[in-house]
């Protein structure tokens, strides 16, 4: 689709050749192993060619794709309704006739709807609400590790705000990290349900390097590193925080922990869209940024670390890291790619352009009437096999 913002994700495709009615051949500009994963994501969703052409840029209002359900209705900010598609290839595995999606922003209200029976299934349950759902005999829960991460991006070279000890000296960044107790952070804010991490991919990813583990808190090391760097104490740091209750709470914990090591962290809480804009302009020193994640590890790394890459707003540049990222991209074998990443992580752990904190989980709550729900790391709800007993 010409107007799709996802086009760059499949930009590696040079040409598509039709081999026979059920086979196509993709010719790439260069070897690009993340492509298969891209095709399982939004960029690879199948659209009906005739309907796409007819609707033009209004396609989003009347989508015609391939799947177990067909689009029935969308009322802006209220609901999306889909109905069972009679000609689906695996229709024997589709049991519910009609499904309504309701966007409810507030997690308390979502939970109240589930408890009152207004909704059958809710996703992104607040970790603090999981205990209440579990104690309710009429409800069940599931959890799955997502594809992304929460980290602190540090401005290393994007404008004058990079010219601070944190941006200029990796020892200061490592001291900042040594002051953090990731397990305590997720225990306090997420009831211990999220997993501390120092990598761009979650532990469940085949690209995760098991030897690169989150270090424990080490205040003595943090103080020694600051001493070695010869900075004036306390080290002033302004941390930009998107205005979201739990991220704000997390930032407060970080503020307290790093304070004990000799940092004076000021929190700059901003509305989310403004914070993204500030990051792009380089108007930040350190920024609490969450990334939703991609199936292939490359989508969590190259665009953030490669010199001049699209989301490398911190302006990190390390030719050795660039070379490893390029090699991993061109390699198809998973184990081989993991070993390339294993060579890359020590470099990134030394430079710390992003201090990873934890990987999130998508927590879901549902009525016990719902059966066959399989959570998937990408967060998209799979409707095949889902049942609802009256």
């Amino acid at each position, binding site marked *: 689709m010409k*107007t799709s*913002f*996802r*086009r*760059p994700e499949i930009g590696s495709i040079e040409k598509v050749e039709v081999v026979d009615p059920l086979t196509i051949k993709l010719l790439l500009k260069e070897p690009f192993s993340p492509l298969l994963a891209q095709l399982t994501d939004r960029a690879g969703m199948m659209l009906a060619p005739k309907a796409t052409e007819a609707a033009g*840029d*209004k396609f*989003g*209002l009347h989508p015609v794709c391939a799947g177990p359900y067909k689009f029935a209705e969308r*009322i*802006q*900010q*209220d609901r999306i309704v889909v109905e069972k598609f009679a000609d689906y290839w695996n229709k024997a595995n589709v049991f519910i006739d009609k499904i309504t999606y*309701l*966007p*409810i*922003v*507030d997690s*308390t*209200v979502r939970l*109240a*709807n589930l*408890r*009152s*029976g*207004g909704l059958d299934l809710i996703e992104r349950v607040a970790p603090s609400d999981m205990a209440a759902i579990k104690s309710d005999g009429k409800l069940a829960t599931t959890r799955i590790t997502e594809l992304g991460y929460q980290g602190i991006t540090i401005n290393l070279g994007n404008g004058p705000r990079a010219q601070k000890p944190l941006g200029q000296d990796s020892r200061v960044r490592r001291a900042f990290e040594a002051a953090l107790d990731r397990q305590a952070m997720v225990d306090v804010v997420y009831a211990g349900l999220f997993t501390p991490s120092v990598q761009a991919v979650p532990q469940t990813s085949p690209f995760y390097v098991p030897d690169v583990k989150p270090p424990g808190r080490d205040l003595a090391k943090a103080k020694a590193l600051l001493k070695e760097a010869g900075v004036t104490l306390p080290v002033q740091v302004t941390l930009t925080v998107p205005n979201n209750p739990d991220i704000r709470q997390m930032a407060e914990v970080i503020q307290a922990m790093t304070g004990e090591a000799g940092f004076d962290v000021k929190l700059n809480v901003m*509305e*989310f*869209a*403004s914070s*993204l*804009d*500030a990051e*792009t302009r380089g108007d930040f020193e350190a920024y609490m940024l969450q*990334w*939703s994640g991609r199936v292939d590890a490359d989508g969590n790394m190259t*665009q953030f670390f490669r010199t001049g*890459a*699209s*989301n*490398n*707003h911190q302006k990190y540049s390390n030719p050795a890291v660039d070379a490893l990222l390029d090699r991993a991209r061109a390699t198809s074998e998973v184990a081989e790619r993991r070993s390339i990443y294993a060579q890359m992580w020590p470099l990134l752990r030394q430079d710390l352009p992003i201090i990873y904190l934890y990987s999130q989980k998508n927590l879901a709550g549902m009525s016990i009437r719902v059966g066959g729900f399989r959570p998937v790391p990408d967060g998209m709800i799979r409707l095949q096999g889902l049942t609802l007993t009256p």
Partner: protein
Amino acid sequence: LKSRLLQVLPTLLLVSILVFSLQQLMPGDPATILAGEERGDPVVLQQIRNELWLDRSIPVQYLHWIGNVLRGDFGTSWRIRQPVLQLILTKLPVTLQLGGMAFVFAMLIGVPAGILAAVKRDTVWDHIANGVGLAGLSTPNFWLGIMLILLVSVNLGWLPPSGYVPLGEDWRMSLATTIMPAFVLGNAIAAILMRHTRSAMLTAMSEDYVRTARAKGLPERRVVLVHALRNALVPVITLGALELGTLLSGAVLTEQVFSVPGFGKLVVDAVFNRDYPVVQGVVLVTATLYVGLNVLADLLYRAVNPRLRGA
């Protein structure tokens, strides 16, 4: 009246210029936000800027927009890709219903409570009315909303916790889904109305014509409800018109808590997503309604107070 109506147009024009200029001051580039996680790609950003005229100068953007508005075209939402007018026409009735019901709640609670507090001044009734009024004013909407959902929907199971059903589709369900948000919304306004009615009634009750009415031997009920109340209503109407405007914009939080897809939710989402055409359209329509309500209040003054008819 003619001169009042003539003032409306420049006011609205000024509002349109203000909204347009103020949102240019908002941090956050719309193209970056629309691009989402693709925001780092300059090709995507350029494609969006080009498509939305963001690469033209601000006066050109404004003239383009206002020219279309004058022809009845409010533009297309950048994010939802639906005509703004269509969005407004779908959402406005929802908020008008909610606001209307909230106003009825506010009037039914606020005015009688104000009269009672004034007539029974310094008695236990006055104190109760004042206490309830103060509590209503001090309770945050979102808190009251969540508490009501937990009590009425989760624990008692009497009403659906959120959502909205249009009046035309099923009026019973429509009332069931709007009664809680309308109560929450009307609650704070009831308190304000109560306090104003009370003080206006106290002033009216000490006027000569009330003494005259009593001296004529009229029953107290008639003195209060016909003679005093009618005069006391003038300031209450002004306040009512102002608060009705507040209701429209103040529905934002309540709509969020109860997931009512109304005007408030539309504008909040639009602001957070920097969907300028929607923000501009909504503000312009709200301003028109607000100005219209004030003109209506002027007309109502004349109806309740004959002395103003010649003015």
